[in-house]
């Protein structure tokens, strides 16, 4: 196929046919990336919002038993990994917003030194404003929380007339921490005086952050069935995965159906376009082009269409996600992964299936193809 008929000749000169083919692939990829990335953004949000829990094991009493010094001693003595001094805290309920509604978030009530230790653990180095003072109705939040709840310094985080984030007095924000972590803190002493329940919880930090998961699992095992609730990142992961398993199964069926429909449609289109080229194929074979020349060229065309379509589709999807992220998600601190690998992986079946459909069409066409029947005008 030297010079005159390169694999791009047909595609370039028959834009009316190659562009719709490419367009279908672009739209399919765009659709799939959009669906999957938005879907993924929900568990991704959970992981982002509660990421702070990666840094500690949380222990919360289930009934009227505080996480008292006996339990703390048990942990100190039994821990399989070296740990930091245990933080004694209390917690109050608040809410953050997600694309699927409000989610609970805990305001950690901590003593003055503990706030600083906790902040250090979260790598918080810069704070706009200051830490809340002991006993005052004050709070410190992190930047994503401020963006999510549209709060600034001086606004109340908790207030008497907010059922989801209640306190007897307006708890004013006095500091905004510059970090990716989502966090809310208030003084232990204020909580002790005005909040319920009057029981202590605890945060346990492994000395080495890499040991935290091991510590998490050990504490979880140790207090299985006890009068204590354990919060750990791996539990969050398990719960999230469990929660979304069915949803992802549905997603798989939807994507599979979508790919099947698109492939079928494309197979039909490819078949029609190739039927229209029967004369060309027959003529070229009669002129002395081998079947291999022709198959190679048509396969080259298919690969070009599929690749160009997929690449444009991914680029378009990337642009769309970027736009959604900057216009809709970021202003609310909603998490969205623009470079979502799994969303891209979900699109791979599109080019692959369409290419296979093309190969099938080509194979069935050239298997029993007799150029004489074309030049004799018996096939036209």
């Amino acid at each position: 196929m030297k010079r005159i008929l390169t694999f791009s000749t047909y595609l370039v000169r028959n834009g009316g046919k190659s562009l719709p083919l490419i367009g279908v692939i672009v739209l399919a990829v765009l659709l799939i990336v959009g669906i999957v990335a938005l879907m993924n953004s929900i568990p991704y949000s959970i992981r982002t919002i509660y990421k702070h829990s990666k840094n500690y094991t949380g222990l919360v009493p289930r009934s009227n038993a505080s996480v008292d010094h006996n339990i703390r001693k048990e942990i100190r003595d039994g821990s399989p990994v070296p740990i930091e001094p245990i933080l004694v805290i209390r917690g109050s309920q608040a809410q953050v917003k997600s694309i699927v509604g409000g989610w609970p978030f805990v305001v950690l009530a901590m003593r003055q030194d503990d706030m600083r230790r906790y902040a250090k653990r979260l790598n918080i180095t810069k704070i706009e404003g200051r830490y809340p003072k002991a006993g005052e109705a004050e709070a410190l939040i992190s930047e994503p929380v401020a963006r999510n709840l549209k709060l600034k310094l001086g606004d109340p985080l908790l207030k008497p007339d907010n059922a989801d984030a209640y306190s007897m007095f307006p708890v004013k924000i006095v500091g905004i921490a510059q970090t990716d972590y989502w966090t809310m803190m208030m003084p232990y002493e204020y909580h002790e005086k005005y909040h319920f329940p009057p029981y202590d919880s605890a945060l346990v930090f492994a000395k080495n952050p890499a040991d935290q998961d091991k510590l998490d699992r050990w504490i979880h095992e140790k207090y299985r069935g006890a009068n204590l609730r354990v919060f750990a990142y791996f539990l969050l992961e398990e719960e999230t995965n469990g929660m979304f398993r069915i949803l992802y199964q549905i997603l798989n069926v939807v994507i599979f159906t979508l790919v099947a429909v698109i492939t079928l449609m494309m197979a039909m289109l490819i078949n029609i376009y190739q039927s229209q080229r029967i004369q060309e194929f027959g003529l070229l074979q009669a002129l002395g082009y081998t079947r291999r020349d022709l198959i190679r060229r048509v396969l080259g065309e298919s690969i070009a269409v599929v690749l160009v379509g997929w690449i444009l589709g991914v680029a378009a999807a990337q642009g769309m996600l970027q736009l959604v992220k900057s216009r809709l998600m970021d202003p609310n601190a909603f998490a969205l992964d623009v470079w979502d690998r799994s969303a891209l992986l979900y699109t791979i079946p599109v080019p692959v299936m369409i290419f296979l459909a093309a190969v099938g069409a080509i194979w069935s066409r050239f298997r029993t193809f007799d150029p004489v029947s074309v030049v004799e005008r018996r096939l036209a």
Partner: protein
Amino acid sequence: MIELRQASLVYKDQGKDLYACRHINLTVRPGEFLGILGPSGSGKSSLLYMMSGLKSPTSGEVLYKDQRISEMSEPERARLRLVDFGIVFQYPYLIGYLSALENVLVGSPGVGTREKAQELLLDLGIGHKSHRLPHELSGGERQRVCVARALLGGRSVIFADEPTASLDHTNGLAVVDLLVRHRGEGALVIVTHDPSMLAHANRVIHITDGEVVKEEVDPSFAPTGPIRETIGP
């Protein structure tokens, strides 16, 4: 140059053998203008397909330069049509998205040059239309592009299967005339049911029901070596 020995082409017709060509012995000599004449359904096209390697004989053999065509691989046979043979089909098939010039070049990739192709089109009287797409050409013009395609690259045999069927008589004669004048040193084999197209043939073979029934030879024709045109200016 091309030799058929007891060559037969058999089609299956409702389980029965149908001889499109039956035990044909025939030689195409270098440089000659051979006409094959016969009524519709007599097996002319079948004979031409065997000679040009588009179909393999069911029995007997076809040789080109003493090589059995049926023993060649598909790519080798294809190469014969790409390089050694030029074929003008009954219908002026062109590729719709290529210009007239490109359609000429497509017949001999890597051999024919753009300049040669343009020259040929000029000789055939459609040089100024070489940029046009096939649908912008008349039937006669399209057939002339097909003629140029078959001629480009200096073929040793040029086959034409009813090249005039889609044209009126005058234009048909003109196409035959073009083939005769521009074939250079190549042999020319024209298949037709119209004797007037073969007025200047060196040899005419009559076939009926797949068999050669008569051969007419122009006594002035010397089959050795290349010959110049016996007609034309």
